[in-house]
């Protein structure tokens, strides 16, 4: 599958507690709702309803420890998905949100120094099978890390909850190891 769209980038640390600010930590998990104020603490201009979503990004390109800062809440991931984000590229990811991304089937793709080849607003194309990332705006391209089989399996099932529902239905939960 090939995904095309516009990128939002940051060289700074993008922290989980800034992606979802304190007043929404207690919100129910809902992609549309969680998207409304996603990134509100990263940039003050996104602290308005759907401000980030309305800029129409498909990709996020970041540097080190994306979504770090220790929050385990999955609102960070559901909020990004609700805002239209389909893939996040970074040098590295914080483990709690990396885990949430896997559970929701949102690709968090490790790509060394990816931030050096993308500016906010650039048009990108990413091939999920070949793992090739192309910047259509400046013509650069790179290969990203492949997705682990388990991660692909969970994504194909539609996320962890559906993955487990299927196992429960098949009576194979006990075989998970």
């Amino acid at each position, binding site marked *: 599958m090939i995904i095309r769209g516009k990128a939002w980038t940051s060289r700074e640390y993008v922290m989980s507690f800034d992606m979802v600010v304190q007043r929404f930590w207690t919100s129910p998990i809902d992609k549309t709702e969680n998207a409304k104020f996603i990134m509100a603490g990263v940039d003050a201009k996104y602290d308005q309803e759907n401000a980030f979503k309305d800029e129409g990004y498909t990709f996020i390109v970041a540097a080190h420890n994306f979504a770090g800062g*220790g929050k385990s809440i999955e609102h960070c991931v559901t909020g990004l998905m609700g805002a239209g984000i389909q893939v996040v590229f970074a040098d590295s990811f914080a483990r709690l949100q990396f885990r949430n991304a896997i559970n929701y089937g949102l690709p968090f793709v490790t790509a060394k120094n990816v931030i050096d080849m993308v500016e906010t607003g650039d048009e990108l194309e990413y091939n999920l099978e070949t793992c090739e990332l192309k910047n259509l705006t400046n013509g650069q391209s790179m290969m990203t890390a492949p997705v682990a089989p388990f991660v692909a399996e969970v994504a194909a099932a539609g996320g*962890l909850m559906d993955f487990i*529902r299927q196992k429960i239905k098949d009576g194979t939960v006990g075989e998970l190891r």
Partner: protein
Amino acid sequence: MTITEKIMAYNSGRDKVTPGELVWTDVFSVMTMDYLGKETFKMFDSLGTGDVFDKSRVICVSDHLVPPPTPQFATMLNEWRAAVKAHDIQYFYDLGRQGIAHQIMVEQGHVLPGKISVGTDSHANTYGAVGAMGNAVAVSDAAVAMATGKCWFRVPEQVKFYVTGTWQPWVMAKDLSLHIMGMMRWNGHLIYKTLEFAGPAIDALGMAGRMTLCNMTVDLGAKNGIIAPDQTTIDFLRPVQKGNWDMIASDADASYEAIYEIDITNLGPTVSRPDKLDDVVPVEMVVGTKFNKAFVGTCTNGRLEDIAMVAKILEGQQVHPDVNFLLVPASTQIMKDAIKAGYISTLLDAGVAVDTPSCSACAGIHTGVAGDGDVVLSAGNRNMKGRMGSKNAAIYLTSPAVVAASALKGEIVDPRR
């Protein structure tokens, strides 16, 4: 293998595991708490399995929102209580028997050496203090664990901190946590890794200090922090857990990605300056800094030993008139023990406000939050902008000893002087 690798292998029916491998393991206990609990049960219900995997091993705790400061939180708590009740949960630590979830999990014996426990709050790393693998997860993972008794994990790379030497007076485990934070940087150089603490200076630590150390490993980006169980662990758990448990330890030839040696003899009181956890300096460099709020509590430093340290320093003295000092024990048990030991009356005599156990000001959504212009000297775990409330407040993090000694003067002092 290391202790963490052994735990992951034994709980997934394998002879061995290798860093990077993805495994499904058995989970001994699952913790969820007030503000995410209703969502967790909703997700669990959507899996359609009916009962939770073990009603005595899904542990529910009210900690972030109790007692409720707003009608919104009161309503959330009511919905949470209804969800817990509907699932016939055996251990529910609600207001009146409450405490911070991670404290409750360890103190009440819901985490055990050699087992894996997960919780829907980031500081679940605390459970490593008893030689368990403690992991923070989000509500989907907790819901799956409640239904199946299982959770998936990536086997982390192994890093060891070997700590030698003698603890100096007034120096606490928190100082070591902050020191390591400064050494390894906050933002992710230890992402996904296991931090194992070992060595004579770790053996000398009581359970409170071990919990502090493991607690803050999440803030280093680590997957888990762990200390091999020993006699201290047995003495701590025996009153609450009658069974036997696995006293797993790392093999002498276990392989680590890195081993860092620290001589604790040279470590003094340590402070993290506002906004960035790894902006860590020896206390000497911030002596004289004025502050108006002092806070001791949280899952990092709200234990009896921490309160004892504060009481010892404040005994017979008065908190500076320009300082509001709030102390919140991490659990009802700790509150009772602190009352019995006379610490609470010492604190009240000194002008400290003591609140009922909760996460309190730490997460910035409950009591004692910071306002514009506040400078807070806190024994909590995070100090990013806005963490305790206003973005226009500054938070210095340090040990309970530094908070207490400084509160007498209204400015940061070195407790050794």
